[in-house]
């Protein structure tokens, strides 16, 4: 199997067929539909202290949502490219990771070991979760 990502200095070469790119292009929409992915994208910083949590939320405002939206926009812009920067490769890593969290929420995955019984033929969501795991792992392998 051809490696989907190879590093060339400060760039990453992307080798994905058009069908795979079409699937990846749907991730921003998938994330927009999934909201906070069953709470997996809105963790509390001070879970034991309501006042401290409110102060933190007031401090950061929408910063995390803004960062994620910027990631998704950059990802959508670059998903058809054959070469991406290391910075964009990190964006890909985060968007793919978020999509995996959203898919896991849809599938009701809550405990370790689920992958032992996972069958990509089980559902489109499980197939995509497995494929994105493969892509993310290969991307990790080429990043510094």
């Amino acid at each position, binding site marked *: 199997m051809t490696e989907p990502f190879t590093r060339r200095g400060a760039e990453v070469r992307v080798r994905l067929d058009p069908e795979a790119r079409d699937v990846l292009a749907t991730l921003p929409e998938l994330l927009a539909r999934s909201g906070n992915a069953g709470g997996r994208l809105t963790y509390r910083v001070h879970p034991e202290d309501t006042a401290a949590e409110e102060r933190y939320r007031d401090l950061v405002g929408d910063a995390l949502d803004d960062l994620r939206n910027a990631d998704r926009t950059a990802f959508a812009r670059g998903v058809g490219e054959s070469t991406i920067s290391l910075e964009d490769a990190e964006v890909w890593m985060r968007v793919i990771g*978020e999509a*995996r969290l959203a898919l*896991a929420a849809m599938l009701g995955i809550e405990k370790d070991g689920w992958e032992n019984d996972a069958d990509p033929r089980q559902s489109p969501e499980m197939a995509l979760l497995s494929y994105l795991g493969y892509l*993310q*792992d290969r991307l990790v392998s080429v990043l510094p």
Partner: protein
Amino acid sequence: MTVAPNQIDLPDTSETYEVDRAWQVVVWNDPVNLMSYVVWVFRKLFGHSLEQATRLMLQVHNQGRAIVSSGPLEKAELDCHRLHHHGLWATLERA
């Protein structure tokens, strides 16, 4: 601009150290994020070596949680925010 002093007096208490160590950033286990990804995040955000990042990742996986950084509240909250941006489950607690 100013020049560096030739001599400074060190404080005779450990108060600064206690303030600097007041908060810990805890990463919790989740069943979805890849081990290889978590190691990469720890190395990228905190500059850990591969060995140190792998040890912390395994601690999260096997024991359910690990302390990945510590410091004053502002730094700890920023670290937490960056971990959340990378999709990891992180919270703060007092040291």
